[in-house]
């Protein structure tokens, strides 16, 4: 039930006092409530759970995580680093 999937905001508007939007999940577009992510802009990715965006995906953190994981293989030759 706590599954949430990332999708890209392609449109935002107001309906019945709520901030709503259209979110594209790899080609499938759904209406999503954006009221909990007031900072999210069109073009950004959000995690959507039961029709509500609950978090904006941080591009910066995503890049850093992948970079950190890319570096894992190079750890093999080094002495162990103090990881977070």
């Amino acid at each position, binding site marked *: 039930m706590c599954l949430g999937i*990332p999708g890209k905001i392609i449109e935002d508007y107001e309906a019945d006092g709520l901030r709503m939007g259209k979110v594209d999940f790899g080609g499938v577009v759904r209406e999503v409530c954006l009221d909990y*992510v007031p900072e999210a802009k069109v073009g950004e990715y959000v*995690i959507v759970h039961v029709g509500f965006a*609950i978090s904006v*995906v941080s591009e910066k953190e995503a890049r850093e*995580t992948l970079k950190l994981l890319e570096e894992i293989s190079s750890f093999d030759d080094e002495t162990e680093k103090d990881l977070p």
Partner: protein
Amino acid sequence: MKHLSEYREAERVHRTLNRLREVVTQPWVLMEICGGQTHAIVRHGLDQLLPPEIQLVHGPGCPVCVTPIELIDKALAIASKPEVIFTSYGDMLRVPGSHRDLFSVRAAGGDVRVVYSPLDALKLARENPDRQVVFFAIGFETTAPPNAMSVLQADRLGLENFSLLVSHVRVPPAMHAILQAPGNRVQGFLAAGHVCAVMGYWEYPEIAEAYGVPIVVTGFEPLDIAQGILMAVELLEAGRAEVGNAYARVVTFEGNRPAQEVIRKVFVGCDRKWRGIGTIPDSGWRLRPEYARFDAELRFDVEAIQPEESPLCIAGEILQGLKKPRDCPAFGDPCTPEHPLGATMVSAEGACSAYYRYGRRVA
């Protein structure tokens, strides 16, 4: 798909697990809290790729599984009323109450409808002013903001025919209960990523310190889970009972502040019974008195019901990480997803259903 496919690349997962093999020096038992993670682990076979020292036990993070049978029975009674349109997430329809489930209520003529979001239930209420629309508001912290928003909207729109049957539960009290249980084996937690997207992880350092267990916020894709396990094992091997975040692209320490505010506005803490586990103090949310008119338990006169659980089902021990689905004598026969004895065999997040669905029927 962006922010999804990158975290499903086998090469990256293998590299992370190779690193784990280098780091681990002794046996460790980790619990993934969330049933969504349990399913991802079993579906992708991650548990079979782990070094033998690491054992994953499956946690109680399956809202469908822990919703108390008394409330299922209440749902069945309310859904049977002719004036009611009973709305629910699809998973709840097959969950066995004492004698039947929501599917059988529907088959007997009850108006039971599956909705994707509580806003869909709200829409039904607006379209059917002469009917009572009830939404089965179950779930953890992730589902609370949407459910709370539906109440605020109903209030704003002046809807008199909308109510919630609330069974909200919270993760941190369950972690306390698991760690305090005699026979606890859990030495570290993978915390549920989307619960933390809402709540942040500011509640966890205290738990990590009090019980000496590291807690790592973890996502749902194979690479996220591999990274969460690696981070937890690194902390365990270093003797550090700290909180880590392996899902930083989605989760911040503070969490979603606007969502937390709406939860606080609509809900208040309460003791809650967890199916198979028992009552955990201050482990749930119920509607605040100012929103009592949206409480389906008060709106409908449902007599006290004496619930009956299947004597064969060991879901409670499975949900606490004490046993695995294969330890159950009823697993696979007679208990199957089509004819479940307990909720863990029903839900898309239940451990028994994951083991059954992904072919782990024999050891």
